[in-house]
């Protein structure tokens, strides 16, 4: 067992885990932060996206030990309270950016990384950036709309498909 310490959503944490512990399992099973999902477990679907030192990563394809000393943000760290959701969470709600919701934590985390790099992305830039996040319900249209809205742009201009 190896002691792995990091800061998750602003709190210092440490757990003894096996070297093979993936970051996503460290979050879900050791810290009970089950908002981060495991979809494909092969780094294709993006349901497990979290931020490590401010960068979006697929937590199913990073060892917990590789995040030693890192600052990690998960979906649980996005809203300051149940009444004060992150602007992306509000926009996904307003624009029906989810149906079953399974991919949503990863979508929000990827979209948040996009907006921190590019505060007003175009529709094409949003679609390109979310290439590694798969949604099997929505057809993506309302997700793109929600990200446009969250970035303060006119989402009504997005043509209906």
């Amino acid at each position, binding site marked *: 067992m190896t002691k792995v310490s990091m800061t998750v959503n602003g709190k210092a944490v440490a757990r003894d885990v096996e070297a093979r512990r*993936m970051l996503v399992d460290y979050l879900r099973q050791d810290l009970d932060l089950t908002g981060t999902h495991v979809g494909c477990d092969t780094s294709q679907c993006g349901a497990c*996206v979290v931020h490590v030192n401010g960068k979006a*990563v697929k937590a199913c*394809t*990073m060892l917990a030990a*590789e995040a030693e000393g890192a600052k990690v943000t998960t979906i649980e760290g996005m809203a300051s309270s149940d009444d004060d959701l992150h602007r992306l969470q509000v926009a996904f709600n307003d624009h029906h950016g989810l149906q079953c919701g399974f991919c949503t934590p990863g979508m929000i985390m*990827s979209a948040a990384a996009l907006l921190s790099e590019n505060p007003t992305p175009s529709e094409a830039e949003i679609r390109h950036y979310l290439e590694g996040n798969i949604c099997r319900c929505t057809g993506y249209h309302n997700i793109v709309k929600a990200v446009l809205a969250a970035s303060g742009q006119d989402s009504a201009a997005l043509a209906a498909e």
Partner: protein
Amino acid sequence: MYNFEFVRPSSVADAVAALADEDAMALGGGQTLLPTMKARLAAPTKLVSLSGIDGLSYVKTGGDSVEIGGATVHADVAAEVADAFPALAALVARIGDPAVRNRGTIGGSVANNDPAACYPAAVLATGGTIVTDKREIAAEDFFQGMFATALEAGEIITAVRFPVPQAAHYEKFAQPASRFPLVGIFVARFASGVRVAVTGASESGVFRWTEAETALSSDFSADVVEGLTPSADGLIGDLHGTPTYRANMIRVMTARAVAAAG
């Protein structure tokens, strides 16, 4: 995956020492190795992470070459070579997806030599150099077939150096599920001639299409490529495409790359 010992040395020398164990493997960003271990296609007893080594993540531009530290992640390369070598930046910006690009490293990609990886095409087409902890290896000698390289056991890629061409372009026909190239073509035009590297297509990994190089060196135009017929011998045939299909794609994508390189 099976459990293993994990170490994260802070120097190249310590990493080399840790890799001396039989069945030890170097871990770059893990974007290929970790899924491979989950599938139990690899089962190292020890992983030696290269992410804790100072001075292994950098991009140096200047003169007519670009040098990239072995542990530099794709996202950083894409951002930092945008001015010095835009064709390389464009290639890197389409590897995997943003989250994969935040973890995957140039050294890891080149060392793995996946027959459908993007980086090897750029290294081979530019006549790049792979720098390791003990020597420098020319691209021609480095890539030795599918997943095979000149690296010895425990040898670490510390940097990759690219001569910057006068004009270049990477044209990738992405397999939509994996985002790997079904066929990817890197065309590089130097004062000394044109080089064309093909990835994704061959059972033997990345290779140079010498017939196109000869034709393009005397007339750098897409029309010249349209008249060539790449051989389907030794090309990959799978559910995504037959060898004949891939041979045709080599011609089509090379013509597009030449047109885009200008």
